[in-house]
C-alpha cells in the first residue's frame, strides 16, 4: 500500500538570540492510510515540534524547516505557500493539541468555532453548516448539542473541550489526524473515554492517526506502529509488537520498564531511566542517549549511530545486538 504521509530527513531549527538551535534532527517516518502511528518519548524530545512542522505552523513561532521533505499524498508540504497550506489545514490534515483548556477561543461560542472550520473549506449555507456542526458534536459523544452550540468554552469541562476540539478537527473529514497528547491534561477516566472515541472514529471515518504520547501504556492500546523519539532524533521505530516484545534500543527498553504494572504490588517503586533529557543547546557528543545508557561503550561517546534498517524496523544504536541478547537471557 502507498503511504499517506512520508516525512523524509526532516530537520527543524529554532531562532534563538545567538543563532539557530536544532530541535529536530534528520527524522524520517511514514504513515499509511488507516493506521495509527504513535510517536513516543519523554517531555522535550521534539514530539510537538514534529507535529507542528507537519502542519507548517512553526513559521508563526520562531521555528523553520531547515531541511527535508514532508510528502502528503505525494505533495511536498515544505514547498507550499502559507495560502496553499491553509487549504490543507483542517481539511486534509487536522490537529488536536495538548492543552484543551486553552485551545478554544474564549470569546466565541462552540458553535461559531465549529461552523467556522466547516465553512472555511466547504461552500455550504450557514444553516447546513449549523446542522453539520450539531452532527459532529453528537459524533464525538456530546449531548444536548443545541445547548452546547451556544455555550462558551469556559462553560465546558476539559474533557468536553477536548471533544469539541476533536469535532473541529473532524469537520472536513481529514485523511490524517494528528493528536498531540490529547489526554495528558485530563484525568484517567476521561483519558480512556477520549482514546476509545479516537479509535472508534478512526474506524468510522477511515483516517490515519498520528498519536503523540509519552505514555507507553497508551501506545500499547492504540498503536499499529511506534516511533520512539529522543532529544530531537528518532531512536527506534517498528510495529507495536516488535517494540513491545523485542525493544532494540536501550531507551525504548527503559520506557517500557517504566510502565506501571497493574498486577504488581503498589508499593514497588516505578523504574525510571536515570538522568534527564539534555537541553538542545547542550547535547552530548556521540550518541545523545549515552550518558543515561547502561550499554554505553567508548564508541557511543565518540560517534553518533545511524538508523539501521532491518526486518521492517529501524534502530539507532551501536549495541542493539547486545540489547536483544540481554532480553533473551532474562
Amino acid at each position, binding site marked *: 500500500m502507498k503511504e499517506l504521509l512520508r516525512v523524509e530527513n526532516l530537520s527543524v531549527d529554532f531562532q534563538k538570540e545567538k543563532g539557530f538551535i536544532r530541535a529536530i534532527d534528520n527524522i524520517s517516518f511514514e504513515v499509511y492510510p488507516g493506521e495509527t502511528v504513535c510517536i513516543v518519548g519523554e517531555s522535550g524530545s521534539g514530539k510537538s515540534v514534529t507535529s507542528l512542522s507537519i502542519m507548517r505552523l512553526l513559521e508563526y513561532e520562531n521555528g523553520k524547516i531547515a531541511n527535508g521533505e514532508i510528502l502528503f499524498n505525494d505533495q511536498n508540504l515544505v514547498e507550499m505557500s502559507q495560502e496553499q497550506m491553509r487549504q490543507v*489545514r483542517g481539511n486534509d490534515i487536522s490537529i488536536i493539541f495538548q492543552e484543551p483548556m486553552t*485551545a478554544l*477561543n474564549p470569546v466565541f461560542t462552540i458553535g461559531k468555532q465549529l461552523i467556522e472550520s466547516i465553512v472555511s473549506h466547504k461552500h455550504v449555507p450557514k444553516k447546513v453548516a449549523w446542522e453539520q456542526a450539531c452532527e459532529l458534536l453528537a459524533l464525538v459523544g456530546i449531548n444536548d448539542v443545541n445547548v452546547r452550540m451556544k455555550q462558551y468554552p469556559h462553560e465546558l469541562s476539559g474533557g468536553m473541550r477536548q471533544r469539541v476540539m476533536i469535532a473541529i478537527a473532524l469537520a472536513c473529514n481529514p485523511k490524517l489526524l494528528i493528536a498531540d497528547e490529547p489526554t495528558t491534561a485530563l484525568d484517567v477516566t476521561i483519558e480512556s473515554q477520549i482514546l476509545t472515541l479516537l479509535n472508534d472514529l478512526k474506524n468510522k471515518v477511515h483516517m490515519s492517526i498520528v498519536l503523540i504520547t509519552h505514555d507507553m501504556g497508551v501506545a500499547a492500546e492504540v498503536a499499529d506502529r511506534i516511533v520512539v523519539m529522543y532529544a530531537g532524533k528518532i531512536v527506534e521505530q517498528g510495529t507495536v509488537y516488535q517494540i513491545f516484545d523485542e525493544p532494540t534500543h536501550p531507551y525504548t527498553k527503559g520506557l517500557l520498564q517504566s510502565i506501571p504494572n497493574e498486577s504488581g504490588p503498589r508499593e514497588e517503586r516505578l523504574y525510571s531511566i536515570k538522568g534527564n533529557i539534555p537541553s538542545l543547546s547542550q547535547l552530548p557528543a556521540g550518541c545523545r542517549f549515552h550518558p543515561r545508557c547502561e550499554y554505553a561503550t567508548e564508541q557511543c561517546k565518540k560517534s553518533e549511530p545511524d538508523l539501521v534498517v532491518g526486518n521492517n524496523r529501524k534502530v539507532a544504536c551501536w549495541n542493539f545486538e547486545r540489547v536483544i541478547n540481554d532480553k533473551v537471557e532474562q
Partner: protein
Amino acid sequence: MLQFAIKRLGQSIVLILIVTMITFFLMNLAPGGPSSMMRMDATEEERAAISEQLGLDDPIPIRYGKWLIDAMQGDLGLSLSSGQEVTDRILERFPFTLQLTMWTIVLSIIFGVLFGIISATNRNTWKDHTINFGSVIGLSVPSFWLAIMMILLFSVQLKWLPSSGVGEGSLLDQFKASIMPVVILSTATLPTIVRFTRSSMLEVITQNYIRTSRAKGIKERTVIYSHALRNALIPVISIIGVLIPRLLSGAVIVESVFGWPGMGRLIVEAAQSRDYNLVMGVTVIVTVLVVVCNFIVDIIYSKVDPRVKNMG
C-alpha cells in the same frame, strides 16, 4: 446584572459625594473666600446683606449640606457672576465639550487600535518603530506647547486653520476649527490606546487558541482581525474608562488655548471669578459624566468577554 448595577450605583454615589465635598471645602478655604467675587464697590452693609442672603455666614459643613439638599433636587443654584441658572450655563457649554471629546475618543479608538495592530503584527520592523516613536512623542510633549506650535504653524504662518473659536457658519468652517483641538486632545488618549492594543495583541497572538484557529485553515486575516483582535480588545476597553477623566482634564487646557466655549473653559472662568455655585455645578456634572462613561465601558466589557457575564 441588576446586582452589579446596584453595586455600581452605590459606589458612584459615594464617589460623587467625596468629590463634591472636597471641591466645596477647598473652594471655601481659598483666600478671600466666596464673598470676594462681589463687586469691588460694594459697601460693607451690602456685603453683609449678600452674605446673609447666600447663607455665607453659616459654617462650611452646614452650607455644604444645604447645597447638597438642593442639588439632589436638581437645583444647582444661581451663577454668582451672571445671575443665570447654573444648569443653564452648563447646558449652554456642554454640547461643545461633548463634540470635542466624542470626536477625540472615537478617532483615538479607531486609529489607536489600527496602529496598535499594525505595530504588533509587524513587530520590530520600521512600521513598528515609527509607531512606537510617534507614541512616545505624543505622550511626552506637553499639550499646551504643541498647541502653541500648531497655532504658529497652521494659523499664523500658513493661515489654514483658525486659531480660536468654534468656526462660524458653514460646516467646513466648524470642521476646520475643531481639527487642532481634537488633534491636541488626542495626544492624551491615542498613544495610550496604541500601546495597550500593541502589547495586548502581542500577548494574544502567542495563545494556544490562535494556533488552533490557524490549524483550522481559516484565513490569516480572520485569525488576526477576528480571533486575536476580539481578545486583545478586552484590556483596551477597560483602559478607555481610565482615559475619560484624562480627556476631560485635557479639555480644560485645550479649550482655554483655543477659546473653545466648552465646560473646560467654563470651570476656569468660574474659578477665576469665585463663582462657587458654578464650580460646584461643573464638578458634579463632570463627575457624573465620568461615572456614566465608566458604567457604559463596563457594560461593553461584559458584552465582549463572555467570562464576566455573571459579575456582581
